[in-house]
């Protein structure tokens, strides 16, 4: 009982570029308004409220942490999509936050 399966777009992330720049070509493959709406919807429906509060307090302490290379990629994505950095971090904790 399935409709035809969809082949997802194949995108490229060049690790030789600065982390903030790597995902920009991939983002341009999508309608920015739709993408932003989907990501905000995910945050609204999937992230526990306490984790949202925690992340707002925690983001100031990320510099120099284990997460730093990934955090720079997230900053680049947030800047391109006009999303707050907290929202970007929450999107990137979507699976993990549901297990905490």
């Amino acid at each position: 009982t399935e409709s035809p399966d969809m082949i997802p777009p194949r995108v490229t992330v060049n690790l030789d570029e600065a982390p903030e720049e790597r995902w920009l070509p991939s983002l341009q493959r999508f309608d920015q308004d739709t993408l932003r709406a989907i990501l905000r919807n995910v945050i609204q429906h999937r992230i526990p409220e306490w984790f949202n509060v925690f992340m707002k307090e925690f983001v100031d302490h990320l510099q120099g942490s284990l997460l730093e290379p990934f955090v720079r990629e997230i900053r680049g994505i947030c800047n391109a999509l006009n999303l707050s950095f907290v929202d970007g971090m929450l999107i990137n904790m979507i699976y993990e936050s549901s297990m905490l």
Partner: protein
Amino acid sequence: CTSILVQDANGHIYHGRNLDFVSGTGLRNITVDVQFIKNGQIAYTGTTFIGYVGLWTGQSPYKFTVTGNQRQKDQWQKNATETLFKTHYPPGWFIRKTLEEAKDYKDAVRRLSNQPLITNVYCIVGGINAWEGVVISRNRTDPVDFWLLNPKGEWFLVQINCDHWVKCPRTTEFRKIPASKAFNEAGPENINLYKLYEILSLCPILSDITVYTTVMSAANPDEYMTRVRTPS
């Protein structure tokens, strides 16, 4: 989620997964296969959705494949979580780091076993040689179990979201039983990526919360295939 490792009669390893996620409708529209390029070469490949920089599904060509499944929840207070984030990786982020840095299957298994993580997780790793396949059941700091492909009968491993050594709740066990039955009916001589995809498409292994299905084999990296699933 369902992750499967299987070996055919010639010792080839195949790895597949269904990524299941409640409220995943929007995510289907932004699911992508990503080729991570370094020095002009494909360093590794993965499947994710745009905006999420970690990977729960990926392949390091001619080295290993890896998927992650959620393991039981933890109850942690906020102050404990803050401490965790300073020393422990989110699993999806560490899986990507492993794809980027691990030299081979054994190195990947070692890294995925030992790195402190912020949540419990199952790491499912497939290699390029016969019997290179393992499900690592992890708590935050340590591995608690290694479930291996082995010549004494376990030529396929079906990992869902509960420990393989305990009886799962009915709703999750329902995915494991038909998968095992399908493999036993097919036999190792009839296994290939298409058969694996077919088994991952059986109800209820495939469900209305399945966002995508990926099948892959590190020894044949060009055959990496993902399909976004759209239940009617």
